[in-house]
């Protein structure tokens, strides 16, 4: 992204676009061809794997977007896990209390946002080390949810799939893309929206300026503290939504530590995607795909391999792809450095 901090948008340059996104495009093409071939052999399984891919990737990309907003504005967020966990818990107990899924989801988002506010307070106002700030949030969320959760609490129902009219009847694409529960749809929109906001709006330009060179941004009249607060809180909303997805759309109940490291995985997806919404989405889809794929393979049961080796697959693949194709990633220049006004 070198140099883009000073431009709102740039003229489209095909050569440069290919050079930058060639690997990603190649992978996308490969996946499309592979799924077409797979579909011709076993249509049902292919559809199941692709649909599961999307579902598994949803909390990861939402968490990655949470980290991304913060880091683009210069605030490292390793508290995604905690924000997700508290979001999941608050969404769950709110739904249990008022028996309204929408209110539950909104409460989850609010919980994430409040922890975002707390992180911003620690890193922007107190100028605390941001790794510590994130860790405080993780432990706090783990402690609070564990302390207040009572065994046997349960909720009625969860978010159901909404088929999008005739689109849902299309072969393969229909069931995979157009027959999903609401948060999955919203997530797809949020990925596109985030890309647009970050790279094609004034808000995004200011956010990136604050993350790359806060002094320069301050000089031209951008309120560095406000931008950092706002973006970290927006990020918190995304993590809270991811939490609500887990309890109210995916599972339909709550357990202690139920995010199970997905917040940390999301952090990895953000770096993997080089601090880009679309890149992080691709990374999340890749991990989601390996999850779905290994589940299908275990279902088949014809291959005599211990299940733990399938379990390793997503993580090994991430390492291989990262080491082999992606390589060094550069975070925003002022990432993690508190800004001192002169």
């Amino acid at each position, binding site marked *: 992204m070198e140099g883009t901090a000073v431009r709102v948008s740039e003229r489209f340059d095909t050569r440069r676009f290919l050079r930058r996104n060639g690997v990603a495009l190649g992978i996308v093409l490969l996946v499309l061809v592979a799924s077409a071939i797979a579909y011709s052999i076993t249509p049902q399984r292919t559809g199941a794997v692709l649909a599961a891919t999307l579902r598994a990737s949803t909390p990861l990309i939402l968490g990655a977007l949470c980290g991304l907003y913060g880091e683009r504005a210069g605030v490292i967020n390793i508290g995604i896990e905690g924000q997700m966990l508290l979001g999941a818990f608050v969404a769950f107990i709110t739904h249990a209390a008022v028996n309204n899924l929408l209110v539950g989801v909104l409460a989850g988002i609010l919980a994430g946002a409040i922890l975002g506010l707390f992180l911003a307070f620690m890193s922007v106002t107190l100028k605390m080390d941001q790794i510590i700030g994130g860790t405080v949030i993780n432990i706090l969320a783990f402690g609070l949810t564990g302390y207040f959760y009572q065994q046997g609490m349960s909720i009625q129902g969860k978010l159901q799939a909404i088929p999008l009219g005739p689109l849902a009847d299309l072969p393969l694409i229909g069931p995979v893309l157009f027959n999903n529960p609401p948060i999955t749809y919203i997530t797809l929109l949020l990925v596109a929206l985030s890309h647009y906001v970050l790279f094609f709006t004034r808000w995004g330009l200011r956010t990136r300026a604050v993350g790359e060179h806060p002094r320069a941004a301050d000089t031209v009249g951008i309120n560095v503290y406000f931008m950092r607060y706002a973006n970290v809180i927006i990020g918190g909303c995304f993590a809270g939504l991811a939490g609500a997805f887990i309890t109210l759309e995916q599972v339909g109940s709550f357990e202690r530590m139920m995010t199970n490291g997905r917040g940390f995985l999301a952090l990895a997806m953000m770096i993997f995607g080089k601090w880009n919404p679309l890149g992080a989405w691709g990374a999340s889809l890749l991990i989601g795909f390996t999850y779905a794929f290994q589940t299908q393979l275990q279902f088949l049961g014809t291959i005599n391999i211990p299940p733990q080796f399938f379990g390793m697959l997503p993580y090994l693949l991430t390492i291989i792809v990262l080491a082999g194709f992606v390589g060094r990633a550069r975070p925003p220049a002022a990432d993690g*450095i508190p800004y001192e006004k002169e």
Partner: protein
Amino acid sequence: MTVRNSPVAEVARRIWRSASIPLGSVLLALLIGAILLLISGASPLEAYRALFRGSFGDARAIGRTLEKATPLVFSGLAVAFAFKAGLFNIGAQGQLIFGAVTAAAIGFMIEGLPPLVHAPLALLGGALAGALFGAIPGMLKTYTGAHEVITTIMLNYVAINFTDYLANGPLKDPTPGNIVARTPAIEASARIPALGSIPIGFIIALAVAAATWWLLWHTTIGYEIRTVGLNPAAARYAGMRVSLTIILTMALSGLMAGMGGAVETLGIVGRFQPGFNVGLGFDGITIALLGKTHPLGVIPAALLVGAMRAGSSQMQFDANVATEIIDVILAIILFFVAAETIMRWILRTRAVSEEKVTLSTGWGQQ
């Protein structure tokens, strides 16, 4: 005036200055915890009394506190040591369980060794396994540029799955009727005993902490590690082997974590069983930060966390308070220790000059 200026008073003032913030933070956190307990309908006095009785009440309680603190010193050291080179090792958990399973394997497979050979051998084996597993993210970082935060997180999952497979497959306890995924119990000769209520493992942990301190501030390698952590470009310009330093740091960090897993297996659990040491590696992050990433600061931090973990079951038993309140209190302690400005304002003390903790600059360096 003469009393105020005497050297004794000066030393006392210094100790007060560096200890006042952690102590104040603990008190403040306990206070906030008490409010939380009151809100949820529990008695804070009863809860804290049980917590104290469970952690320091008698010799057995103190022994339990030291037992809990031992692996935490190791995992805290692992994370703190990597921070010194600007590396964030979230993978202490994975390195720790590799150390634990290796120590268990050496502990039950070899028979007939004298204790003075068997136990150290198993301990070293575990440490070495942790070191090898820790070196992988270091190599990936230097040779391919893969970020250690991602690779260590991913390798945690690999380690969990792989050790789970071992405990379910080739290393499974063959005792008839056993359906649990676990290794057989280790031989008596591989056990690390305790001296009264002081586990020898804890003494080893103290020695490793001291050795780490010595390595960092009294050797050339330590100097290189700290320079790479503060400014890799300058380190490279000065002719230091940055890549080698990174790999070495990660390997040593993994060694410490692996040793923690091995000590836990050989001194307490007596076998490897998946799920038995979950969280020890992640607690390492908290402890490293509470100890200000200083190898000697890790010791009181681990003791504090160990004491709270040791006393929490007593608290649950006596006062019917869920053990997770401990984590809430820990988070608040960490917050106040790190938010020095608030604590200094409350306590009206001045800042002590110390090496600045710089963690987040390591994010995009190298």
